[in-house]
Every structure is written in C-alpha cells, then in structure tokens.
C-alpha cells in the first residue's frame, strides 16, 4: 500500500519536529512543512497531501483562513487542527469551517494515532 502523504503546518519548529517524528512512526510520508497560512495554501495545491495538520495562530494568514481557502479549492481535503488549550473559540470556528478534527497541545503519539486511525479507516 502506498504511504499516506502529510503536510505539517505550524509556526513553531519544535512542534513541527515533534509531529514529523510521530508521523514517521505512523508510516506517513511527510511531503512538506509550512510555517504560515499562505505557504500552507500554496503547498497544499502543489503537493495534494492526504492530510494536513494545521496550527491556528500563525503569521501571514491564520489557520482558519487557510482551512477555508484549502477547502474551497478541494472540499475533500482532510485537515486536523493542532491547537493550544484555551483557544476553544477558534477550534469551534475551525470545525465550523470544515476541519475534520482537533488535537490539543501537548499531544502524545497516541492522541495523533487515534485521530489518524479515525480518518483513514
């Protein structure tokens, strides 16, 4: 079976590294990384990944707008929001915009695995 492709979007390098490590373990192909909303949208169009992990608070276009733009172009895109505790309002907004699910930082390998399993059953 072909490896699933994931695009990781987060402005913090530490989080990106952590996510990369976990997704590698889960046997994903990490096709790209973005640190702001603009590049997330561009990279999505270029790479057409099976999954995007999306931070919300980022420079140059926030995660919510990025989710909206991506889904407008491809309504089937699977986006999971990675967010910090205390940003519940924006999580609801992201879900409303069409994000599939959300994961709260700090996250464990298990948290990610559970969500991924749900999405790629």
């Amino acid at each position, binding site marked *: 079976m072909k490896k699933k492709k994931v695009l990781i979007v987060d402005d913090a390098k530490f989080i990106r590294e952590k996510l990369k490590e976990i997704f590698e373990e889960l046997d994903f192909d990490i096709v790209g990384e973005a640190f702001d909303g603009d590049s997330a949208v561009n990279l999505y169009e270029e790479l057409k990944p099976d999954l995007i992990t999306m931070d919300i608070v980022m420079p140059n276009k926030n995660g919510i707008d990025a989710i909206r733009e991506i889904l407008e172009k491809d309504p089937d895109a699977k986006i999971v929001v990675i967010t910090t505790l205390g940003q519940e309002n924006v999580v609801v907004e992201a879900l*409303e915009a069409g994000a599939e699910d*959300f994961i*709260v930082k700090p996250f464990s390998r298990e948290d990610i695995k559970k969500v991924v399993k749900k999405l790629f059953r």
Partner: protein
Amino acid sequence: MKKDRYRELFIEESQEHISGLKEILSKGESVTEEEINEAYRHAHSLKGMAATMGLNEIVQLSHAIENLLSEKDAGKNFGEIEEKLSTLEKILEQFESGELSTETDQRATLSGSGTSLVTSGNSRSIFRIEIFFSSSLPMPSATIFKFIRDAGKKIEIIETNQKKGDLKKGNFNNPLRMLVKGDISSIEETIKETPGILGIKVTPIDTDEISKKKIQIDSIKVKLSDLDVLLENIHQLFRLKNRIKPSLLKEDEDSFYKLEMLTERLHEITLGLRMVPLKLLEEGLRNLVVTYGSEMGKKVTLIMVGSDVRIDKNIADRLLSILTHLVKNAIYHGIEPPEERERQGKNPIGIIKIEAESRSDSLEIRISDDGRGIQVDAIREKLLQKGILDKEQLELIGDEEVIQYIFKTGFSTSKTTGVIAGRGVGLDAVKEMVEKMYGVIFVETEPGKGTTFTIRIPRALIIQNLITVVMEGNKVAIPTYLIEGVIERDQADTGEILYHGEKIPYKGREGTMFLIFKDRNKKKAFSIEEIIEMDFQLVRELPPVLRKLQYLLGYYIDEEEPVFMVHPGTLWNYLPGGTSQ
C-alpha cells in the same frame, strides 16, 4: 460526596430490581403474563440505570434478559435468565466493593458498543439522547460542537441544548441533550469516536412499545361517567362535612380534622383518576399538522415534549381546541413556505414544538414555531388603522406590549382572514378559552426566529356537571346530581305542582318551566325561564367575601361573566314566597 450518593442509590435500586426479578423467576411454570411483564420492567429499569452509570456490562446483560423475557413463552428461558442475572449480580457486587471502578467501566463504554442500549429505532422514531461528558475534557465545547456536527451528518437532529454562539465562547451544557429522528445505531460510530463520554441515556419519545406495555398492565378501564358520579358523591360528602363542622368541632375536634383530611385526600385521588396523559392529544395534532400544513403549502413537523404530563380529561378536551387553534395559527402565520425558508438558510421543514410541563400548582404549555416571528410593525400599523391606539399611545409602548395586542378582540393582521377555512377563530377566542380555564396566555416572538405562546392553567380545577338556567332573570348553575327533572309550567298557580303524582312545593313567579330538585329527601321546585346548557364546567372556589353566602358553592366563567353554582336546597331558604319547608 454527591457522586457517592448516586452510587449508593444506584446499587440500592439495582438490588431491588434484582430481587424483584428473582422472585418472579422462582415461580417457574406457574408464572403469569403479567408477572413476565413486571420482570421485563425490572430488567428495563436496570438497563437504564446502568447505562447512566456507564456500566456497560450490566446494560448488555439486562438487555439480553429483556429480550429473553419478551420472547413468546418466556418461561422456557428462565434458566438462561437466571444465569445472566447471577453474572449481573456479581458485577454489581464488584462495583459495590470498588473492585470495578467507574473509570475502567467508562472506558468500556467508550470503546465497547456504547449504544447497545438502543433497542429499537426506525427512521421515523424520535429519541431524546442525553450524553454525559467528562469534566476533564480539555476542550468540551469543541468536542460537543464536533459531535453535533458529525452526528448531524448521519441522523436528523431536531434540537440540542447547545447554542453555536455559546459553544464558540466556550460555554456548553453537560449533559448534551439532543432530540433526534431516525435510527440511532447510525451514530454509534460517532459516539465511540468521541472522547470523554461517560454515559448515554436514550429515551424514545414517541409512542414506543415499552410505554404502551406499561400503560396496559398498570391500568384498568373505568367509565368516565362512573368517575363523575364518584366525584359528585365526594362533593356531597364535602358539604355534609361542612354542615356538621360546628357541632363536631365542639364534640370531637380531633375526629373532625381527620375527617377533613380524608375527604380532601379522597377528592384529590378521584380528581387524579380522571387524569389522562397529554399524549392522547398527540395523534390529532399530528394529523392536523400534516393536513393543514399541506393545505397551506408548508412543510411542518410537530414535536411534543412532556406528553406524559397528566391532565384532567375535561381540561384535555378544552386544551385540544386551544392547541388546534395555535398550531393552525403557527402554520398559517409563522412557518414560511419551504422556498422562503431555504432562501433564509433555514431547514425547509418548519418545526412546531409543544412542550408541557407540570408545576406544583399549574400546568405550563408552550407552543413554539421556528417561523418568521410576529411583525411588530404590521401590528402597530393595524392598531393605528383600526383606531385602537393613536400615534402618541403607540410611541409610549414597547414592542413586547404591542405584540400582546394580537389577543385583542377583532384584531387580525392577516389580509385574508375569513377566506381560509378554519381561520374563523382568532387569537382573541383562544385567549377567552384560556381565561375560561382561569389560565393566562402570553406570547414572545423574535423576528426571523419564531414565536412562542405560553399558556399557564391552574392544576386544581373542580370539574362538575352543571345545569345552567335562568331563574328570576339571573343565570345560575346547579349540580345535575341534585336535579330530579324539568317539567312545563302548565298548571294553575297554587303554590304546589304535581310531579309524578306527587305534590311538591315551588318558588318563583317568572318562568315557563319548573326545575325539580332534591333537598335532602324532599323534592322541591324552582320556576325557571330558560335552560341554557348542561355541561361540565370548571368550577372555581369563591373569593373569601362571598363564602358567607351559604347557598353559593362556587362559580365558573361564561363569556367573561361569572355564573354562580348554587345549592338549591339552601337557596330555597333564602328566597321569599311559596310554601316553604
């Protein structure tokens, strides 16, 4: 502390149901159908409680027992049931001793088939689902939002107790309550995938088999007229009690208070016997929504909440006509045509909801629709046009007050009133009907969101079969059980009349008829001018100032005027003339 109390209560109640079940099982071959039904109820209660506690294994076991009991010739399954019951008991013991913590069991509910408690559900059933979330969820609002969103893709969600705006602000209600329509098993997956669910409670809210079963075996049929006789006898007992009050108070105060308590209790119980569940009105209203809705070119569903609330049979009759008017009103004025609703981003199917709630002294019924709401400006314009209020007056009152004018006699904002069949009755008539029941009605509305009518009627109303007559120019009502008969006044005025060969005295100069009544064991007559009606009336207690008039028993309202209920024998003594005694 609170949690422990629930735990204790749960264990205690479960044990009661288990021993109830055991007792029935011990009957073996000689078990009756009714006992099997009882056993079924024990199992069902166990299941419901365990589901709320998140004890999935007990849920499954009691569910299995239910199934075994509902099979034909359930007696043959007793062995199997006993086995399951003893396993169930062991689990309960473990839970009691703390060996089985709720924590592990919560997990079981989450990962196991948490919705196996759903026994039935076709695409047309409506269920109330309550989902209890853990307080340790990191983002409860987002979790609940996601759950509603995902479940909504699989099942029709009629309503929830969460508002999107609140969830965005991080405000949520726990438990999440939803009213859903369809096969609940379709959201089993969504429930399993959602973190932090501690327990789920599912209640079918339309006429489901279980509740039917309960009603059948718990009740017997009694003719309503028999109950009326019983009630009337109790009223006589009341009067007798009041008559002997002075002497008995002197001789044996203690006994008098006991007697007073007993008569009141008896009265209460008898009134209770005449109660019917509001559910009985449901079918008629559903048909109305379908037929009248399609007549008006609108799509409407009706939701009834609280149809278990019990009300007096006579109140139910009156309530049905009030609800019929209000439902028609909602369909006609409130609910928009499907195209218009879609343009506004609403579900093309409008919802009319009837909620009943029983309070300590009153019954509250709310009829709401999710339609366009009442157009306050149109009402203001109309009030001006009709000259009910002038410009200055209108400026002084706020929208809320303006809206209440829809109940005013002769007021109607509809351009086509009278043309449409069934629109002959306006809201003024509804208000009158409510007021006849000593109730109040008011309305709240939000433009674009809908309108809610709230009706509140007192619970304690005495219903009595009364004959209402005109006597010497006055309308009075007399309990029918005191009436012997009515005859034409075609005899010479001799102060006495012949009735079935018996000479009886009468009073009253006017009138064309004689109303013959019983006064203790004697017959007497009043001359009357007219019989207005003979019907059940909701009789109210007299205000204190009138209680001294011994012949007055109470009053009811007819066309906004009070009609007094009199005791003919006592009234006789107050009237001049005739051959008294």
